[in-house]
């Protein structure tokens, strides 16, 4: 099993926590995995990209058009990271928008990329946890059931990673993200061996 996952977003919004949960979920499932935290100088509000590779890789880096999964925690950072997503890849984007601009939609279709939009910020805000939009996106991702990142495995990793004080709320947001994908339907129609 090999996955190349790109987590892209902005500082202060839990991108690094999300990627740490992904790598620990993979390792906890007995897989080899390596991750890289890339962050610029500014701590809040700057671009943050974190990469996770599952499988027999030596380096944690992802080449242009090599990534299989793109988790975008912010719409503009989604565009920047698109160069790294391969043909036929999966992109999940946190955005309030109902659809993407025509040029991007056309590109995604041409490159056979499955793309789903989710208002993860909205879900997090409803729960009174604005900072935990990352959990909503992870829950949304869990609904695709791409091994090893099933709902059960990700939940268990979140339990081991998130401090007790915030755990219940985080799991609630995670669950709502999962439900949002199920409601949309066709989340589970991706074969797990595709990526």
């Amino acid at each position, binding site marked *: 099993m090999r996955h190349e996952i790109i987590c892209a977003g902005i500082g*202060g919004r839990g991108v690094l926590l999300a990627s740490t949960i992904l790598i620990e979920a993979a390792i906890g499932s007995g897989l080899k995995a390596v991750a890289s935290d890339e962050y*610029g100088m500014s701590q809040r509000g700057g671009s943050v990209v974190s990469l996770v590779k599952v499988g027999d890789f030596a380096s944690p880096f992802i*080449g242009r058009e090599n990534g299989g999964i793109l988790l975008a925690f912010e719409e503009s950072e989604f565009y920047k990271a698109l160069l790294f997503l391969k043909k036929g890849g999966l992109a999940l984007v946190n955005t309030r928008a109902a659809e993407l601009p025509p040029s991007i939609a056309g590109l995604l279709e041409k490159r056979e990329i499955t793309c789903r939009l989710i208002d993860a910020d909205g879900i997090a805000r409803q729960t009174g946890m604005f900072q935990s939009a990352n959990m909503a996106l992870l829950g949304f991702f869990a609904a695709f059931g791409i091994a090893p990142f099933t709902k059960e495995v990700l939940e268990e990793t979140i339990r081991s990673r998130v401090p007790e004080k915030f755990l219940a709320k985080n799991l609630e947001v995670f669950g709502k993200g999962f439900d949002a994908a199920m409601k949309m339907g066709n989340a589970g129609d991706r074969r797990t061996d595709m990526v």
Partner: protein
Amino acid sequence: MHSREEVVIGNQAIARGLVEAGLEIAAAYPGTPSSEILPGVVYFRDMEGSKIHTEWSTNELCAFEVAFGAAAYGGARAACFMKQVGLNVAFPALMRSREKSIEGGLVIVSCDDPGPQSSQTEQDTRLIATLFGIPVFDPSSPAEAADVAYHALNWSFENKVPVIIRSTHRVSHARESVPLYGPGTRRVAFREGHVAGRGRKLGIVASGMSCSLVYDVMEELGASEEVSLYKVLKVYPVDEALTGFVDSMERVLVVEETDQVIEALIGDAKKVMGRRDGTVPSAGEITYDIVRDILSRVLAGAGTDRRPFVPDGGIEEALSHVAVVPRPPKLCPGCPHRASFFAMQYLWPDTIYPGDIGCYTLGISQGAVDTCLDMGAGVTLAEGFYDAFNQDGKLVPILASIGDSTFLHACMAPLYDAVRNRKRFILVIMDNSTTAMTGMQPTPQSGVTVDGTRTRSVAIEDIVRGLGVNYVRVVDPYDVPAMIGTINEAFGRVREEALPAVIIARRECLLLVKGAAKPSAYPADIERDCIGCKSCLKTFDCPAMSFDEVSKKILIDDSLCTNCGICYYACPVQPQGKALKAEKKAGRPGAAAPGNP
């Protein structure tokens, strides 16, 4: 056998290896990408119940000498950690230490920053080590870094010479599962030498993260069999097997960061491709795409490109139709430094602003930082500027800025130098009570050590007065009129008494206090008030603000804004900004009475 594993970053892995090897003394000065090593030592020390003294030193020379003293004369197993430019600060001691026989063991971890991402310059620690004959290792992954750290400390202890471990930010900040062994029981099996491929036409020699990248790219390009890969782990002294490998290949490509070290050690200019002949870019980080590009070209040249990578230009085309927010590095929303820079820039927009190394180097985007040379140069460059103008009979305001940790690291001697030589400039010490840029390490002033125990704290204002500065004021940078008034007053004093003046702009880093800067700054009514002049974007440059091209008004990102309310001073419509504008128009900027005299 190891009993358990833990998912850690490279820096924590280095700490783990050292703790397992019986480390007794560890000292460091924080600097990206090395900062997590010392806290890692504390973490694993406590996990194992080992007895290890740990300390944040005031600079890298202090760290080095503490470790060297403990190792050379005290017989201890010691280590010190720093970033690559920090090694320069420790250089005098490093030069002498290499010729000394040490009684204990000494490991120096110096983390390089290819790019550079968070340094003033790229610099290759391996080059310095090799030039001066100091053994140096270049691990390629976190797990290997743990083994290298364990081996290096034992090797130093047995051979009585210091050993350098060179990491890069891509190793230091990569994350993977690392086996944990009990103290003294780690089983190290290095993977170095001819590690992959059988072909004789092309051999690749690589080290560190570059080697890991080459390995992955060769797999992608389907070249793993026909291209031979030689992995270098110990860069100096170089293994003789490398010569044999090079001799057996028709052509050799060297991929390494950041300088020519292995390439120079091999030396065969006819056979070797690398930085010297331009095959590898001469500067900047070596990324996956760069390695893929180099290998594709070299394989094509050898007529063996099997699965060439062809980029889809359609992606750039599609992206050209959407607005992408650039997000360059900026000070955080609500950062007290931004308020200080705003006040400095307001008074004398075109004056001279010597800057220094830290978060506050980013004041460059507000037009309030002109230079970034090295730690401490904010003060000494101000002296040089003063002399140059003074010789021409001119006195211009010179406004230098440095941080609190930097002041203690490198500015005490320069400031005394300025007093003794009667230099006229204003030094703003931006005191946010922490070493923010590198991850919130406590400064000496905080009175807290690396493991959280209390120690004696030292107030910067006492030091400054002790150095002979008469004009010392402490101002809250959020009080913008007070800041402006104080800077103005300070310039008057500088003129009068021919001494530097010091303003300590004191407010805690927002990451330290966590949460809103102010609970209830009144919300801006952008719909009603904003005239779309963008002057706040220019002079305030806050990441929470952007310009909405549709409404032609400022857009505030609620999730980033901390309600600090300082941007009102940058707005010509709000009363705060209006007052500043009026003062300036009347030719009396900074006329309002300064705060706490």
